């Protein structure tokens, strides 16, 4: 789509992208207790960026987010791996997770779990993979 061709889509998506991203963030954190999780959140964030790419064009996305998404994938995989390996240091088997309840300021009694670290890896990997594929195919002209 040529640049600036759809002013409605562009203006709406400027706001909607952030709503989607915020929702993705919510899905990510709530994943352990209610519907959501790293995978869906990752896909949804990628969807938000995709919307940006549709409304504007890929160069804009590149300019706004000057990240190599292949590296995002790698970082995600590394976090997932480290989250699993971390258990080894406590004498537990690989990928064993722990959780506990803590009283945090503002949030009150909150459950914290190491699975979230692993989930963060999943999230980043999914975002990285999806965006790499989208941008690669989209840029191929």
């Amino acid at each position, binding site marked *: 789509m040529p640049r600036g061709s759809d002013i409605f889509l562009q203006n709406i998506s400027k706001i909607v992208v952030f709503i989607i991203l915020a929702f993705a963030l919510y899905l990510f954190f709530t994943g352990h207790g209610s519907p959501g999780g790293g*995978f869906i959140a990752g896909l949804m964030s990628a*969807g938000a960026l995709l919307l940006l790419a549709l409304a504007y064009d890929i160069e804009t996305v590149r300019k706004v987010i000057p990240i190599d998404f*292949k590296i995002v*994938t790698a970082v995600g995989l590394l976090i997932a791996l480290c989250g699993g390996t971390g258990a080894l240091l406590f004498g537990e088997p690989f*990928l064993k997770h722990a959780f506990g309840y803590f009283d945090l300021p503002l949030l009150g009694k909150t459950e914290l779990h190491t*699975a979230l670290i692993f989930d963060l*890896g999943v999230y980043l990997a999914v975002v990285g993979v*999806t965006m790499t*594929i989208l941008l690669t195919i989209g840029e191929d002209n």
Partner: protein
Amino acid sequence: MSLLHLLTLSPFLLAVLIPFLGKAVPRLHKGWFAAALSAFVFATLLGYLADVRDGSPIIESFDWIPSLGISFTVYLDGLSLLFALMITGMGVLVALYSIAYMNAAKESLTRFYVFLLVFMGAMLGLVLSDNLLTLYGFWELTSITSFLLIGYKNEKHRSRYGALKSLLITMAGGLGLLSGFILLYVMSGTYRIRELFEAGAPLVSHPLFLPAMILILLGAFTKSAQYPFHIWLPDAMEAPTPVSAYLHSATMVKAGLYLVARMSPIFAGTAEWFWIVSLGGLVTLLYGSVASLKQTDLKGILAYSTISQLGLIMSLLGLSSLSGIFDGEEQMLYAAAGTAAMFHLLNHAVFKGALFMAAGIIDHETGTRDIRKLGGLAQVMPITFTISLFGTFSMAGIPPFGGFISKEMFLDSVIEPLHAGVFGLSTWAALFPIVAWIASVFTFVYSVLFVFRTFLGPRKKPLINKKIHEAPLLMVLPPALLAVMALVLGLFPGTVAYSLIRPAAEAMMPIVTASGERLPMDIKLWHGFTPALWMTIAVVGVGILLALTVRRWMKLYAFIPRRVSINRFYDISLRFFEHITVRVTSLYMNGSSRSYVKYILGFMMLVLGFILYRSTDISYRVGAYAQIAPYEWVILLGLAAAALAVPFAKSRPVAIILTGSVGYLMTLMFVFLRAPDLALTQMVVESISVTLYLLCFYHLPKLRTERQAVRFRLPNFLVAVAVGVLMTLVALAVLGTNPFEPVSDYYVRESYESAGGKNIVNVILVDFRGFDTMLEIMVLGVASLGIYNMIKLRRKATDVGSRHVSHEDDESDDVADRFRKAQYGHDGPIEVPRKKEPWINCVSDLNDKAPEQEKNSDSEFEPEPESDCGLSDSDSEADNSRKKGGDQDA
């Protein structure tokens, strides 16, 4: 996690940190980190010496994946300790040597030291693990790092060829090894080496015993370059010299010997083991020593000499297995072969390490390794000369060096079978001393020629005016230490005999010490006038004679036929298989994603249909379903209508939108059926895949004009209908049959209790089946890189047109640079770099006339036509996401 575990894993840890450390302290050569770490591990391992010497091995267990029974158990006995000390000790010296040898300005050292450290960790893991599967994992990791290090100078064609050769041969052996381990498991029910030792007699009489033995020996023989699998080792000399010294003489090639020694308690005492191991070793010993003489490259001489020496140790290991069937006095005599093997193992690491480093110094200072161009270096390089002298004399078995003692013990051991009278030895035992003696003569000749032709005599023409001087101190120090050690091992063998050699030999032959007594150590310089000494004297006499007249009888080598060589067989078979593979693959991989879908569906139908047809206890539930509400009817009808309309769509965008609407209606169904997770996933996946298609069409305008309306094709129609029917049947069967307690109950019960989550799907994904998820995101990552490469590389092939091969170029930096430009740069026309030749084809380049001929077979790899590519790629993406979505259904 014990200290031993951390020691084993520490090289891996440093390998991860090396790139960052290199950035933090850019002025420090990265080799210092590797040297410091190996020195630390070496020193810590020395602390275990006392315990192991007294015969009490150290065992530390750590559950890796307990549900699969895979544990990472570290077991440190004499044998492991000897190897571990060799690995880390040589590691220190090689790292120090490489600091002087590897030029930081010219080469990427990060890569080098990362590979080297990973190798060191893998090797440590190999000799320390008690579990056959972890041992196998580390085993393959050593093969891979060896491959990477041989191919370190990947712009050189010979490096790539050598790397691929070593990988193919050692990996083939590795597969044999894995099968052998699995057979052992089938027989005994355990993967733990310690438990296998106790399995005993029922194992030996098992019908799978012999196949397991042969498969495991296949792994050991390929790794330790035994005839006829030795052909990869000479080509591996393309690696930088520190690597040759470390991997291809001191440590990795000895992994095969370690395995044979480690498995000895299980297999020793059978005729097959004795004959295969000892005869295989003997043939290799003779072949290596004879072939070494005709080499002209210093490293080539050392490579064949390594093959030969590995054969020597292998035959000693075979001979020592006789100790399993005798007892008393005789048992000790045969056990001495095991002691000799362990001692020679150490000696060989010492003198061969020194010689490789000396060869590296000569190469570094003169610029050539061709022995025909060298000569008279003794005046200018006195230290290197001394080092080489010590090394070669130890190798030739001349007193007072360590090699003399172990060679004497070897000769003693080959005479011993004359009195054995088992396994048909009464007829064939004479073979051993004769072959051993001939091989020793050749060993003597090439050793002497190695040092004298390089260092004595007049300077040869090419180097006559060159200013040659001694190498820097750091380069000379490691081999000098090794040379001194070769002398110390000869003069004071007691320093290692009781602390290292005896525990190692005892660990190899537990049967000898079963009664509680210790193995006698008979390692000393002077044995008296034994038959072995007379043999040595004869070796030296005949050897000097042959060395003096070498020019007259070297012509005999011309009679060895060139055309019938194992190398040639390797090249031809590789090219043959390459050809066949291309043919076969192109039969079904025709580049159209439509046919791939057909394969996948067809296979699914076959398997599922067969199972449904054969199973007798499956019942289909046809009635008693919940009421379908009117609004649900509407959605279902819409679903069916959209799905039916897809084949009749005239253009692709319409078809895609119709498919999308099927997906969105599905989402709605999920919502009504109260499955918010599925609904979310389905919706996001659907949105992304649909927009992906649209995005493709914006940027690929040509695609928008559909070629023609899709014609009706009966096979496709039948496949589609059959899949639909089958899936319906499966759905009905799933509802109607309930043979097991559903696993979902377990997850419902446990996900809050033991994982603290209420969202079962997510808990399963990240916790219960976290390992699956990790592998899945890894697959996703690989898929995305694959798509990236396919699209970025595709256009190059078409633009360049001809894919003519050229290997003189080193454009890797260049390519990366252009890539970055292509990715982030402006819209302008992108200059397209030339396609790099895939690895697999490098063999064919060996032959000069090959490229022309290869081009034809290459053409089958021609990239797919533009129109199909975008679609098939996005297909695979959608597939991935769908698969993931499907997983969430679980």
